[in-house]
């Protein structure tokens, strides 16, 4: 059996009293790339926020590397090895790019921070020239690179990305996914939530389709499972993909 890296079992979560997502279960293994796609309001972001501990679980549990992490606060989950790029990027606007990145490894010594910074710059060479620039002055694509870079600075085994392509021009999206595809040499698992279904499914080995707070379909083969446009948007009613979700 392949080691489970992240395991969700019957997770329900939401805001106030009513759950937005219900009974979500899936397993990710080491180095796996999983995309969660679906229309606005399907509960994708809520799912990530529950995984990261931004909102409490109402039911179910979240395990990372075999240990229950469902009650840990967000920073503790990050320190366990889950890198997180929240929706909206959440950079430190008035700090320079270098500080933004280094704060992702604030618990490490200076030498280790420098080493990781070099690694991140190797992935996003464009950031080299921008190290001294304040984050708020970057373009959307550059900001997204900093956000991913900052998450990588913590040395994660799992990277969680919430809609990285939002507001980016198609060319920039392509560039971003090209960089993501080269990450971690198969060791780093990536969980990504996207509306840009094609980009996400070209990148991920597996996709889960969410709607109405539940997982309603899955696409297994890389690149092959891009649901038809109209089906994805719900204009036609037919099963999104051949393989049903594991319950």
């Amino acid at each position, binding site marked *: 059996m392949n080691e489970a890296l992240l395991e969700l079992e019957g997770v329900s979560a939401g805001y106030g*009293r009513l759950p937005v997502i219900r009974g979500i279960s899936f397993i990710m293994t080491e180095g796996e790339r999983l995309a969660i796609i679906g229309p606005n309001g399907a509960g994708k972001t809520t799912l990530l926020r529950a995984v990261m501990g931004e909102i409490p679980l109402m039911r179910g549990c979240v395990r990372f590397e075999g240990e229950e992490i469902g009650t840990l606060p967000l920073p503790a989950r990050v320190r366990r090895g889950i890198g997180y790029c929240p929706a909206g990027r959440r950079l430190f606007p008035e700090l320079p790019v270098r500080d933004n990145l280094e704060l992702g490894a604030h618990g490490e010594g200076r030498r280790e921070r420098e080493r990781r910074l070099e690694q991140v710059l190797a992935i996003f060479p464009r950031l080299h020239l921008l190290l001294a620039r304040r984050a708020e002055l970057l373009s959307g694509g550059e900001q997204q690179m900093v956000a991913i870079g900052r998450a990588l600075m913590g040395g994660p085994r799992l990277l969680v990305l919430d*809609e990285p392509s939002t507001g980016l021009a*198609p060319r920039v999206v392509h560039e971003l996914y090209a960089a993501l595809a080269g990450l971690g040499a198969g060791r780093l698992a990536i969980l990504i939530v996207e509306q840009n279904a094609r980009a996400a499914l070209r990148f991920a080995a597996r996709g889960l389709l969410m709607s109405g707070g539940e997982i309603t379909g899955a696409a297994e083969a890389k690149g092959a499972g891009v649901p038809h446009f109209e089906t994805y*948007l719900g*204009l036609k009613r037919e099963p999104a993909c051949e393989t049903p979700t594991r319950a």
Partner: protein
Amino acid sequence: MRRAGVASFSLSPFLQAGAAGTLAAVAAALALAANDYVAGLVFSTAVNVLLALGWNLIGGMAGAVSFGQVAFFGLGAYFTALLVVQAGLPLAPAILLAALGAGLAAWPLGLLMLRLSGIFFALGMLGLARVLALLANALDLTGGPMGMTVPAALSAAAPAFVAIGAALGAFLLILALLESRFGLRLRAVADDPASASAIGVAPSSTRTLAFVLAALFAGAAGGLYVAHVGYIDPASSFAGTIELQTVLMVLAGGIGTLWGPVVGGIVISLLSTFLWARFPTEEQIILGALIIALALRLPDGLLGGRKHPRFRPPLLRGAVEGVAGAAAHAASRGERAGAVLAAEGLSRRFGGLAAVTEVAFEVRAGEILAIIGPNGAGKTTLFNLLTAHLAPSAGTIRLNGAALARLPPPHRLARAGIARTFQTSRLFPSLTVWETLLLAALTRHRHWAEAEARAGAILAALDLVSVANQYPETLTPGQARLVEIGRALALEPAVLLLDEAMAGMNEAEIARLQRVLRELAAAGMAILAIEHVIAAIAPLAARILVLDQGRVLTSGPPETVLEDPRVIDAYLGPERLDVAA
């Protein structure tokens, strides 16, 4: 689960008034029968309740927390002293005039101070109290720092009766207000000023009225205080201790509740009398610690945390005219011939970033226009421009052919006939579904019965009758969305703006909403829907306009637009990776 939000019981206003009257009678009997010490205690308790009722009206019910309500206490005290000493008036009319004077002074001050928001209002009021104290200190008229002696009331019982009467009067006035449309407005404004303006309620005038009444009560309390002690000086009339006690009373009883100030006023008055007798030097430390303890352990006070609907729907009679009826009224406000809502060359830049560029469109009566686009396409910015939350950098918006002012206050826009929903549902947490619809209907209808009929029709048409007395927290996201749309419809707008109304709805709810929108359009309402869920809006829309990167990518009937490869690319990302990295 559901039951939590439904009121399990509620007292009728007459019972509540009776209870208050009984309480007052018991207090009066106590003041009359017992010795002067007890009468004095009854007096100070009644004055405290009066102060707390006033503070709660502005700080709790209107949601404008003040740390300087003592300013009006001091003002009332000084007015009374001056009227007695300088004008030779007897105490009773002096107090009455002084209270009215404090209220009158509060009107311009309220208009001014309520322009401050949140903490700045609270601190500004603290500043106002300080400035008035310094003024009283500096003037010869007020006797400077030494103050003045005022002939006090002879017995302890007489002022106690007056104080009880004043507190009872204040309570009954607040009760009556809560039973009126003003009460509904006040609750809405305290909950969410932006949402209240969206249904035509002006937050500033609503709050100013609450501010004036609160000052009136505080002024009366100040006048009574002078009559009791027979002496006045700046230090004691504007004392921070008074503010501390008032806030503590309201917090202890339950902020924003009707009975909270009464219960808190009695409990804290007795407690502080006891503390003052036993631990005179530590009293304020203990009271301060008590506030902290309340914030930590009992933030809703003794009575808070429970909500009772004040208004319930009347029995809905047989056939209701349906939502189309509401729309028919509304359609009369839009021009049949031309565009109801039109935009020309609308642009908005944020610094160097062009969020919306040269967008133009028009919506006619009876037409549904859908505006779609991927995330970040500028949909929200466009919506904010149309609802006057943002001023356009260039371009004009026309309603029935007339250009709108650059940035009209949202409540004017709502009254002019533009109704909107919010992207993330923004219902009023302390209003039931029925109260929400009723409040919006009251914006259009002066007569209560007409407003009720209108709200009732919408309630029925949207299948919300079963949740009429529930609070938003107990609604499903889909129901909450329907209530928000109902609230907009109750304004009988010429044009209805929907901001991602179908996001987060289940299929049944989408189907119901589609039916409603069809009926509305058929009855002649103009509808502009900004949507992400294309599937839900495409079957309804006469035309679809696609935004991408702030510009109009294309527009036309749904069939053509949705086949357009550029649209597909904008949503799903380009099919081929032919762009160089």
